[in-house]
């Protein structure tokens, strides 16, 4: 990770030309033949035939054209400016603004037992910090019900990291809704046998137990994965999160779903949102997510485990 002084120097010197090119995109594109023909036809029809339908069509065309231009500018900001800045800030990082973590990884994580049938997202990042590979993106999961009714299942950060210990089973930490709502009865319901082959695991930390319900295919392995220090780290992260945190340990990876009420890396359109401070703010956002690797102690590589291949983005 680069220092702030290095980042500022990079923005002022190396990124200046790319920022200038991006600012050029923000200028209004000159009217084309279609615009001119549309304008003439609208004015002629309004005066000659007293018809206003064509005026509406022309207005619609102008709105669509403007939206397309805005999208192009926003996309270019991430593609041309942010990706260069991120590559400098965290050498070796792979940033793909239009991609997101694939649905197969979301399914493999087992973090959303509630059904969802549409996934979207952006800002896919893959990199390595120390000896830990990580992948994350903004993710949005939606369930489409009857009569085209949409329910938002999740919106936020979906983070995957190669876990530092070897394990074979599956362990899930989900928000403890049943116990919060139904008390002892909820706890008894959670202890009933489940169809996915997991059992309830009660961990020692009462604060952790209040916040999460832990299910695992192997109670000993769940405690091996969830060491007392990791439990504390996850708890600290959950206390800072704006919504219920979900964590799972599957296939030697740690999956984490952190709800967000705003965009992870907002795309700039106005000149002010591409200022030096705003750009450094985006890098700080990237560092804060990458910092999860250190925050969760995943770089403590004192166990005999090799690296894992990266998953492919959607």
């Amino acid at each position, binding site marked *: 990770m680069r220092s702030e002084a290095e980042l500022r120097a990079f923005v002022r010197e190396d990124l200046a030309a790319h920022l200038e090119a991006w600012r050029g995109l923000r200028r209004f594109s000159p009217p084309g033949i279609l615009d001119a023909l549309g304008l003439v036809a609208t004015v002629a029809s309004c005066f000659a035939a007293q018809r206003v339908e064509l005026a509406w069509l022309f207005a619609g065309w102008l709105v669509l054209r403007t939206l397309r231009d805005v999208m192009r500018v926003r996309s270019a900001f991430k593609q041309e400016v942010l990706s260069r800045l991120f590559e400098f800030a965290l050498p070796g990082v792979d940033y793909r603004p239009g991609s997101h973590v694939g649905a197969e990884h979301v399914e493999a994580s087992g973090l959303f037992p509630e059904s969802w049938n549409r996934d979207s997202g952006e800002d896919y990042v893959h990199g390595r910090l120390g000896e830990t590979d990580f992948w994350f993106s903004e993710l949005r999961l939606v369930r489409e019900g009857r009569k085209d009714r949409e329910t938002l299942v999740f919106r936020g950060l979906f983070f995957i990291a190669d876990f530092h210990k070897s394990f074979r089973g599956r362990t899930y930490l989900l928000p403890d809704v049943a116990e919060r709502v139904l008390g002892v009865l909820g706890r008894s319901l959670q202890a009933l046998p489940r169809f996915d082959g997991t059992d309830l695991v009660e961990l*020692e930390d009462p604060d952790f137990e209040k916040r999460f319900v832990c299910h695992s295919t192997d*109670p000993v392995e769940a405690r*091996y994965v969830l060491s007392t220090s990791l439990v504390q780290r996850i708890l600290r992260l959950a206390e800072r999160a704006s919504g219920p945190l979900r964590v799972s340990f599957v296939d030697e990876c740690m999956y984490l779903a952190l709800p967000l009420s705003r965009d992870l890396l907002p795309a700039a359109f106005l000149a002010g949102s591409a200022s030096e401070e705003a750009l450094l703010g985006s890098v700080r956002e990237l560092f804060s997510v990458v910092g999860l690797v250190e925050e969760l102690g995943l770089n*403590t590589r004192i166990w*005999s485990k090799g690296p894992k291949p990266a998953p492919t983005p959607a």
Partner: protein
Amino acid sequence: MHSVWIIGGAFVLFALWMHGVDWRWLAAGGAALLALAFNSIVSARNQAEKAWAGIEAMLTKRFDLIPNLVDAVQRYVEHESDLLREVTALRGAERGARAGVAEAAAADAQTERVLSRLVATAEAYPELKASESFRELQRALNEVEEQLSAARRAYNAAVQHYNDSLRMVPTGWIARLAGFEERPSYEAPALHEARPDVGERFRGARRP
């Protein structure tokens, strides 16, 4: 957890009795509740026994590492003969670990203390620290220590669940009649004092 269902079931039987349901149905329901209570205690006891077997397996795994550890270090630390003798003698503690929970905890604490001294001593021998076989063994030892810690926590959780079922109503009444006895939890006080921070010591030695 089963107590909630058993008490709930008893209330349902009571309500059925108030509504004049045939006594044979009530007797069958009562017998089913008794069976559920008895089975829940047996299940909790089996879980505790399974968790104990997990601790034994991990202790054995750690004892199995000791001869390899001695082989890896003795060439470098010839002057530490007392320590080497202590490490070698740990093999004898394995028998103690099989005698019971308290004995196993004592043997466990002793092993951890000696291995922690060995790791600390290795710091003074750069050649040993750099030896690939020693580093591999250290990684394996770290893994076993973590697995052992998980097995201890799983055992204590299972024992607590079992002992709770012996103390709670109505499972406690049935347990007393059937002669179930409480199990001791795995207490290892010396462990916390002498627990080696192998992770911190090992941080400098990266995998190639």
